């Protein structure tokens, strides 16, 4: 019996090479995209985790300030060190500095070599210049990558700069144990502290417990004793933070890959359906000869797997190649910029590979399910005589009623799903709603085809066209299949285009509000030199107005990425002049500390305007009022804005990192020259708002390039599905066409009829696709985006893009049906009529 199955599979593949190959390719495409995304992400995360481990070591606990401006006080270090469960405390100060004139911000890690030797051996220095002494004599050590990048030499002097602090010290050696690609500096913690602070403590305390200690219980006990400005976390929490940074992005990419896989499944569906239709006589014969009905079902499923298995295997190979190529050419950076220079090694593991193989086969199997069922229920004697029966015999009013109830249920469920919150930060309900919209679109195809063709049948059409319409009305299955393929692919395209366009429009408007000044100066998180700030105070600068901003970060949840803290010089009475609020703005009395939070904060922490909030500011627990929620497309994990006045009143140091500058009217050129000179002198970045805007939009466009590629793939697959099903439907009607031809219709008339039919089907598909697409776009924009990325935006349907795509698809569909018609009518009518099968 398996031999027979194998004969049939081989015969099928040999007789329909291109359709089979394309189905395999479609599956391969979906699998390869998914697998490549998985591999790149896994490699980048492993790389990041490895790098983090080498820099951080593997402590049992990390005690760190929740405010980037905070510190771990000295007394606490001693207290923790004396704890009997503690084997070792490793204090660390990490800061970002510049070396001399170079504008690159470099990580400088201040270590205590005695504890680092145990906990962070990768950071241990190697002396390379005997005259400079060792690390305890204040030498600076650079990783080999950094030495290469900046063209530095061991033994040379270096000037380490942060804000107005400068430290002249020799580069005493390198960091041989550090992995290639890591650009950082290491020095003794005391020298770093003396030059760059923090004033009364260290930046972070890493703790190794005695073997056999219960780390979790120890952390929990200390968590209760720590002052409010500090939190204690496990090393794994840091890894989780990193994973969280890219999680939503990864899931979204994976969903897109899944979509590609689904379109592949659809193509298998179309191919297998036509295969079943074309071989209905053969299967009927085998049934008569005694092939069990179960085998008629299984045979089609086998064929699905036979497409899915090589397709998935090819997909895995392609995915691997794609991942290797991507990491070689672009690197493994996910956009965080942490290890931009690193090239993670792609390591394929058995289990995920197997998972994707199963996924691919599953998709293919899913596509073969309905055709297999249809094959199973074909009435044998009838099929043997008259060929494929499109209407399954059970298609009684009862099932139609059931279907209607199901559709109504879906319609009712979708709005509910869109209102459900994210699960574990993932918009799963949103994704489910999207799937249901697509199901709804496909399920509406039969009704829509019947309506469209029914309406056509009532009009006075030329005879061949009427015959074509009549034909579809009588045997609508192929038309429905062709239409649903278009519905899915066009819906996906429309939704993506809509989502991207909405986002881009919103981003464009947002940039207007957040870039009010013509010029900006920034220093990548380092404080700006005081010299420069002083120069701006002098009379005679070409600026009429300068606004200063300081950036920091707050850790509100140890397992989430930290939230940006923006200290800004803004008018407390009118914060709306600088922040793009998306809701009401509260005016609070002076003395009440007010913060304005970004939409991401609202989304993640469930904040509302007017509510009070406790923030770990400056090592203390400070109660603040939420004065409003503003839109922020720059910081996905949330941002909190506070006025510089409030911040200073709390005792914070306003270390300016960013400047917005307005030149005197008429002295724009002088301003430009002034800024260029200062930027060069201090190694900082100067940009005009137009440049920032252009750069932002180009980054945006680049990051959505993958989406566009997937859209194109979906569209192509949809069109190919249309062509396959149309060709099959025409092929199934070869005898009818031949009869018509024998009755006197000429070939052109017949071709026109088929093209007309194709166009009508395409129109139905496009109309439903457009409707579902806009619905999906709305869900993406209003549910998925806010939940996954914490970005809100108004819906914007880009008709100028959607309509041309629709038109092109319509034309392509007509072309496909014309091709099918030509093939069918190319055979001599007499031959077709004579041929019994």
């Amino acid at each position: 019996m398996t031999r027979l199955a194998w004969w049939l599979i081989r015969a099928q593949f040999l007789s329909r090479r291109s359709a089979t190959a394309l189905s395999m390719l479609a599956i391969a495409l979906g699998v390869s995209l998914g697998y490549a995304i998985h591999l790149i992400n896994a490699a980048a995360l492993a790389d990041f985790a490895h790098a983090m481990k080498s820099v951080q070591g593997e402590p049992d606990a990390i005690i760190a300030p929740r405010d980037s401006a905070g510190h771990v006080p000295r007394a606490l270090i001693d207290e923790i060190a004396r704890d009997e469960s503690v084997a070792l405390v490793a204090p660390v100060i990490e800061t970002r500095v510049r070396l001399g004139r170079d504008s690159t911000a470099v990580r400088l890690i201040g270590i205590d070599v005695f504890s680092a030797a145990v906990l962070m051996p990768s950071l241990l220095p190697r002396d390379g210049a005997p005259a400079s002494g060792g690390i305890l004599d204040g030498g600076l050590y650079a990783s080999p990558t950094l030495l290469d990048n900046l063209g530095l030499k061991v033994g040379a002097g270096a000037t380490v700069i942060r804000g107005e602090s400068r430290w002249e010290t020799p580069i005493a050696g390198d960091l041989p144990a550090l992995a290639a690609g890591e650009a950082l500096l290491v020095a003794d913690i005391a020298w770093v502290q003396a030059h760059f602070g923090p004033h009364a403590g260290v930046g972070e305390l890493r703790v190794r417990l005695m073997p056999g200690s219960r780390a979790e219980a120890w952390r929990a006990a200390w968590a209760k004793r720590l002052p409010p400005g500090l939190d204690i976390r496990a090393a794994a929490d840091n890894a989780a933070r990193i994973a969280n940074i890219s999680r939503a992005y990864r899931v979204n990419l994976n969903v897109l890959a899944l979509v590609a896989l689904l379109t592949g499944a659809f193509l298998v569906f179309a191919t297998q359906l036509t295969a079943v239709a074309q071989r209905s006589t053969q299967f009927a014969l085998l049934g008569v000869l005694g092939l069990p009905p179960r085998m008629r079902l299984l045979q089609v499923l086998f064929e699905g797997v036979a497409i899915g298995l090589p397709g998935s295997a090819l997909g895995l190979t392609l995915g691997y190649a794609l991942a290797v190529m991507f990491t070689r050419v672009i690197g493994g950076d996910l956009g965080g910029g942490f290890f931009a220079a690193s090239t993670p090694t792609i390591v394929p593991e058995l289990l995920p590979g197997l998972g994707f193989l199963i996924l691919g086969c599953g998709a293919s199997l899913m596509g073969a399910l309905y055709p297999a069922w249809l094959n199973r229920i074909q009435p044998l004697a009838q099929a043997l005589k008259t060929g494929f029966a499109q209407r399954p015999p059970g298609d009684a009013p009862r099932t139609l009623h059931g279907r209607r109830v199901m559709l109504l249920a879906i319609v009712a469920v979708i709005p509910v799903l869109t209102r459900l919150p994210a699960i574990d930060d993932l918009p799963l309900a949103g994704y489910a709603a999207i799937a249901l919209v697509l199901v709804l679109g496909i399920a509406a195809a039969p009704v829509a085809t019947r309506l469209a063709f029914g309406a056509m049948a009532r009009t006075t059409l030329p005879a061949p066209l009427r015959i074509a319409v009549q034909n579809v009305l009588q045997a609508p299955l192929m038309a429905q299949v062709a239409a649903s393929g278009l519905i899915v692919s066009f819906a996906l395209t429309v939704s993506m285009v809509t989502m991207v366009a909405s986002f881009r429009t919103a981003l464009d408007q947002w940039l207007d509000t957040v870039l009010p000044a013509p010029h900006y100066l920034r220093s990548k998180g380092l404080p700006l030199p005081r010299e420069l700030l002083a120069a701006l105070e002098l009379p005679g600068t070409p600026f009429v107005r300068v606004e200063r901003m300081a950036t920091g970060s707050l850790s509100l949840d140890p397992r989430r990425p930290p939230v940006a803290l923006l200290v800004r010089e803004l008018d407390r009475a009118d914060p709306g002049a600088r922040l793009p609020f998306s809701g009401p703005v509260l005016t609070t009395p002076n003395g009440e500390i007010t913060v304005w939070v970004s939409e991401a904060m609202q989304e993640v922490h469930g904040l509302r305007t007017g509510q009070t909030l406790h923030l770990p500011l400056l090592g203390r627990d400070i109660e603040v009022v939420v004065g409003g929620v503003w839109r922020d497309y720059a910081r996905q994990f949330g941002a909190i804005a506070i006025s510089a006045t409030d911040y200073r009143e709390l005792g914070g140091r306003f270390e300016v990192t960013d400047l917005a500058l307005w030149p005197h009217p008429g002295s724009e050129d002088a301003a430009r020259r002034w800024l260029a000179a200062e930027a060069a002198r201090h190694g900082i970045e100067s940009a005009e708002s137009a440049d920032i805007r252009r750069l932002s939009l180009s980054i945006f466009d680049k990051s959505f390039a993958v989406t566009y590629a997937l859209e194109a793939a979906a569209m192509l697959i949809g069109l190919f599905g249309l062509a396959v099903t149309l060709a099959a439907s025409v092929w199934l009607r070869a005898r009818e066409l031949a009869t018509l031809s024998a009755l006197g219709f000429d070939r052109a008339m017949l071709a026109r009829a088929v093209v007309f039919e194709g166009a009508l089907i395409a129109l139905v598909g496009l109309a439903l696709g457009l409707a579902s697409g806009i619905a999906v776009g709305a869900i993406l924009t209003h549910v998925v985006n806010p939940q996954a990325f914490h970005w809100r935006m108004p819906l914007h349907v880009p008709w100028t893009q959607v309509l041309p795509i629709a038109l092109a698809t319509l034309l392509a569909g007509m072309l496909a049906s014309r091709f099918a018609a030509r093939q069918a009518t190319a055979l001599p009518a007499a031959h077709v009529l004579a041929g019994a099968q």
Partner: protein
Amino acid sequence: MLSVVGLGKRHSGALRPLFSELRLAVGSGEVVALVGESGVGKSTLLNCIAGLEQADSGEIRIGPDALDMHRLDETARAALRAARIGFVFQAFHVLPTLTVAQNIAVPLLLNRAPPAEHGERVESLLRRVGLAGFGPRWPALLSGGELQRVAIARALVHRPALILADEPTGNLDPRTADEVLALLLERVREQQAGALIVTHSRHVAECCDRILTLTPDGLECAHPAGPSQGGRSHHPEPHGGEPTSPPALGRGLGGRVVQ
């Protein structure tokens, strides 16, 4: 080989039954022709016997240990068909995507015969239907007569108890038709199977042992014209060109008409 008792069938929506209380039997080595006007229900009767259509009443027993086709489920009916029945169709129905040998081997596969025997059995049948050496050929390159010989080989390869043939010579020219028919009868008798041949051709009917005529009122039995010769040793002459006298029916196994 075949025994039908009390068979009745009415198409849904039809006013009167197509047939009812039919009774017929086909003995070992016996070839029975089923004739009748178009639409009288010959094909339906055949389909009911093959278990492709469900009769409304009656029993259909096929084979030595007399399994009732009527009482089995679809899968079991398929298995019974595969084991006990060989089919020959007017339209040949040779699978175009399998070679001649593969086509003939299909019933062996369906019966899970040991693969080692396939080649030999297929070869010997090919020889006996006069197609020695045709095994690797593709059906598209064969003539109608050759295709029907392939179909006959396929119908016999698993030594079924019953051969059901529906206008086996309908698509053939007279000369080829004679050859093919002679071959079919010879092989059926050789294998001691029973055969029921639906035909419009008087000539074909007269080659059979008995002729059953299906009318709206039931089955009528007749013996073919010509001198009756007892015994089963008389077979049609394959190359005689003339209708030969069918053998006398087997002892006590003649069909009866029951109203």
